[in-house]
């Protein structure tokens, strides 16, 4: 028995650990550091129909226990991802790929989802309706339940693989959005994307990021992520892939307790590029210490009656 095995729609995960979208490119760079096959899955960088250069620099700023980014969905575009990145990944690892799908209109999402879901190693798509760093699209789809609902229905029609929807924490009522997304046919949720934040330069008085605002990630946002996953997991019946500030195996367990079924690691890759393998190594020992046989016993334990 593999104590770390988790089964989710479209995803048979040998462990619940995967790098978060945007923090791991398309896998090539980290493959120079370790064998990608040890991962549970890989969430690749957002893909849009056309290539995108993203926002002007500076695009990142450090904050207390966190960081801001305003990359702005830079990516080589759907064609190149289909022709180069995904085949490269297929050749170099057999791990399920979750394709992060972004856009500026319903048509964009539908186009990318329809095509990218035909790639043999893409086992699920992650619909990014929560990017705070682009002016149109992105987060605009993720803050209005009805808009999100309609988008998901359309995407579900074209996608050949299960659709996970990435939620924005920048909302008054996350449960409303989650329910609308579930009703729209989503197979799972991923949460949370970044909180919108800003940092000013002491000398110039101006925002450090050229885009002014950016998305706040890292340990600073972990309590918000835990709270939202705790609330949403009790109100929907589709599984959640949790993220937001995870830095160690103990954090992974906290996310599972809250109600996530698997987790993604974002900013922590920057502090320690070997963070995913270290966490995977540590999990069995931690399960022993906590008295669990199987990692799935942790899921939702904060609110489930035992």
């Amino acid at each position, binding site marked *: 028995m593999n104590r770390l095995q988790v089964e989710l729609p479209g995803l048979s995960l040998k462990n619940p650990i995967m790098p978060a979208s945007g923090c791991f490119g398309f896998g090539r760079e980290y493959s120079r550091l370790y064998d990608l096959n040890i991962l549970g899955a890989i969430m690749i960088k957002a893909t849009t129909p056309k290539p995108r250069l993203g926002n002007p620099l500076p695009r990142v700023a450090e904050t207390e226990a966190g960081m801001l980014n305003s990359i702005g969905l830079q990516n080589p575009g759907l064609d190149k991802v289909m022709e180069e990145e995904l085949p490269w990944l297929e050749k170099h690892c057999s791990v399920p790929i979750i394709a992060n799908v972004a856009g500026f209109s319903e048509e964009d999402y539908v186009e990318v989802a329809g095509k990218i879901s035909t790639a043999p190693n893409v086992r699920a798509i992650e619909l990014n309706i929560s990017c705070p760093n682009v002016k149109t699209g992105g987060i605009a789809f993720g803050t209005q339940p009805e808009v999100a609902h309609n988008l998901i229905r359309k995407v579900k029609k074209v996608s050949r693989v299960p659709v996970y929807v990435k939620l924005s924490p920048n909302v008054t009522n996350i449960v409303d959005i989650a329910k609308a997304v579930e009703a729209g046919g989503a197979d799972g949720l991923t949460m949370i994307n970044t909180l919108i934040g800003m940092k000013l330069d002491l000398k110039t008085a101006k925002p450090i990021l050229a885009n002014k605002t950016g998305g706040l990630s890292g340990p600073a946002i972990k309590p918000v992520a835990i709270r939202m996953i705790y609330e949403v997991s009790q109100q929907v019946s589709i599984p959640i892939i949790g993220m937001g500030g995870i830095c160690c195996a103990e954090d992974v367990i906290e996310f599972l307790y809250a109600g996530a079924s698997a987790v993604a690691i974002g900013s922590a*890759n920057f*502090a320690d590029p070997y963070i995913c393998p270290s966490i995977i190594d540590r999990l069995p020992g931690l399960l022993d210490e906590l008295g669990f046989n199987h990692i799935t016993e942790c899921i939702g334990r904060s609110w489930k009656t035992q």
Partner: protein
Amino acid sequence: MIQKEMCTITNHQQIASNIFEMTLQGDIVLLMDEPGQFVHLKVSEGIDPLLRRPISISSVNKESRQFTIIYRVQGRGTALLSKKRTGDVVDVLGPLGNGFPLDETGPNETALLVGGGIGIPPLYELSCRLVSKGIKVVHVLGFASKDAVFYEEKFMKLGTTYIATADGSYGRKGLVTDVIETEGISFDTLYACGPIPMLKALEDKFPDKKVFISMEERMCCGIGACYACVCHTKFDKEGSSYKKVCSDGPVFRAGEVIL
């Protein structure tokens, strides 16, 4: 190859106002082949600060498995670094990026090395390597003021060295470009590292020469995965073609990227 290693501090001292020299020991040194590459340092355990700090490798000694960095205390990260003592360990990721090309200057040719402030450190290893190939080196080093000057003697041992300070408190007063002009320095290849305006001025001044510049940008991953440090190429100003400073650079051929 890139490696992560806890390296031990074998020497750490202040060498100018706010400027520190730190020598670290570890097997990672065996991978350090190109002058101009950098390391990505975690200056403390835990989450404060969260991100690594990119610092250039300023000299390498494979026999003793030691390398040296020179850094200026800028903000919280470098301040914490400066408090470490000999014997402490530092979490080093590296070597990262592509360094200065050594084979662009032939033996008996002259290389001009121009550095500004904390852009100077990587030029030291570069100069050593050029000299050992029989290349003649000339250094023009710019500092803010007298108390910021470091490594003058070390560079002098390798070749002619001009010092300029912005306030004229030491060496020549003015910019490195002024010095190159007034001294009428001639050269075959130019290697530069320092503030963007300096790099720009050099690029503009010597459009027909072989010029290599080293860039700085805010970084997260340091290995090319996060798109934090992307710059446009001259070839495609608005389009989607780009270079990553961390993995395609930090050294570029002049004209390759937009400054």
